[in-house]
């Protein structure tokens, strides 16, 4: 890092001293040009990476989003027991979590028995971001839970393999009964790409490092308890879910 910061100074020095000094100007000029280009790549790359992963307050927001809850898709905010699910639609363990507990959790949401906040983050790569943004489009159609489940049911074995395209994501929506043209437009225009980045930025700020991370009233459910439906039901009941 320190060395990088010194580069511009050194460049100037050798430019000034080099032409009149003992070194031949042409060669140092070439070297300085290359150094300058490398520095530019590093600064531009790092700068844009940092900027991209900041919360964008102008991002378009889907329905059911709770900004104060990390931009998550929030159901039944008045229910006393809260579940936060940080997940990545490309993550196999998240698919397993959904396969074991999805129906139960969805039934709690529909019966308004639990405050559930879904945080679909991108931790595995570009197609995670695509699927997250598409899930928000489904939320606008009132079909978040259905789409959520359909994404996992259709999860391919390889990540970022080109399987998740806008076309495919729209088809999944149609298969669960979404008919509005707005849904397709939402996916094709990347309407909620920035929102998805905000969900990720919030998870990063909250030190969420793996998926699924499931918090019951803010307390993580250990990975070994995540794939045990009976155990999960007991945990929920102990926390006050009726």
């Amino acid at each position: 890092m320190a060395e990088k910061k010194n580069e511009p100074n050194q460049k100037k020095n050798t430019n000034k001293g080099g032409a009149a000094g003992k070194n031949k100007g042409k060669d140092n000029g070439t070297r300085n040009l290359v150094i300058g280009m490398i520095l530019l790549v590093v600064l531009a790359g790092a700068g844009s990476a940092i900027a991209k992963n900041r919360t964008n307050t102008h991002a378009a927001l889907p329905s059911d989003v709770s900004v104060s809850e990390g931009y998550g898709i929030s159901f039944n905010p008045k229910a006393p027991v809260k579940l936060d699910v940080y997940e990545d639609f490309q993550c196999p363990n998240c698919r397993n979590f959904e396969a074991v507990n999805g129906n139960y959790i969805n039934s709690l949401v529909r019966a308004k028995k639990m405050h559930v906040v879904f945080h679909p983050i991108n931790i595995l790569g570009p197609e995670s971001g695509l699927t997250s943004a598409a899930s928000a489009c489904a939320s606008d159609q009132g079909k978040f839970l259905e789409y959520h489940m359909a994404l996992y049911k259709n999860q391919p074995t390889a990540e970022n393999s080109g399987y998740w395209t806008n076309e495919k994501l729209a088809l999944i929506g149609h298969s669960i009964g979404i008919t509005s043209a707005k849904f397709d437009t939402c996916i094709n225009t990347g309407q909620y790409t920035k929102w998805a980045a905000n969900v990720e930025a919030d998870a990063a700020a909250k030190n969420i490092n793996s998926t699924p991370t499931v918090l019951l009233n803010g307390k993580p459910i250990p990975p070994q308890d995540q794939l045990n439906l009976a155990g999960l039901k007991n945990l929920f009941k102990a926390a006050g879910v009726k």
Partner: protein
Amino acid sequence: MKRISHVAIAPWLTLVARLLLGGVLLVAGYLKTTNPAQAAASVRVYRVLPTGLANVFGYALPWIEIGIALLLVLGIWVRYSAVAGGGLMLLFIIAIGQAWARKLAINCGCFGNGGVSADGKVHPGVYLAEMLRDLGLVLVAAYLYRFPRGKFAIDRISEEFTEG
């Protein structure tokens, strides 16, 4: 700077060392740029830096690695680039070591998704393998510090022009 003329093989070894350390940094950096979220998470899991700082470092690190890698591969400021590259590796070794000592499950993002402990279990082999690989690269960097002059280096061309 000491001169190492009369050693015919040294410049070639230096070239190999540059390509090795630079190549590893370039690949590691490039893979991480394709997934900045994971790069940041893989810094956070070491729990050395506060979360905010870890994120900034995680987003910037791949580009710093690429920068050092390009300097090494092209042979610019080889001595200092080797110190920077070797220094990074030392940092990683320390980070992995403290994670091991604290029994933190690390998910090192160095090569895609390597060294995963997704189930929360701690596997000593994961830490050891990462540390040994990084230690090897520290030795490569040390060689470059001692013998920075190699074939096909921009540094070298400049020097030869100066000497001639």
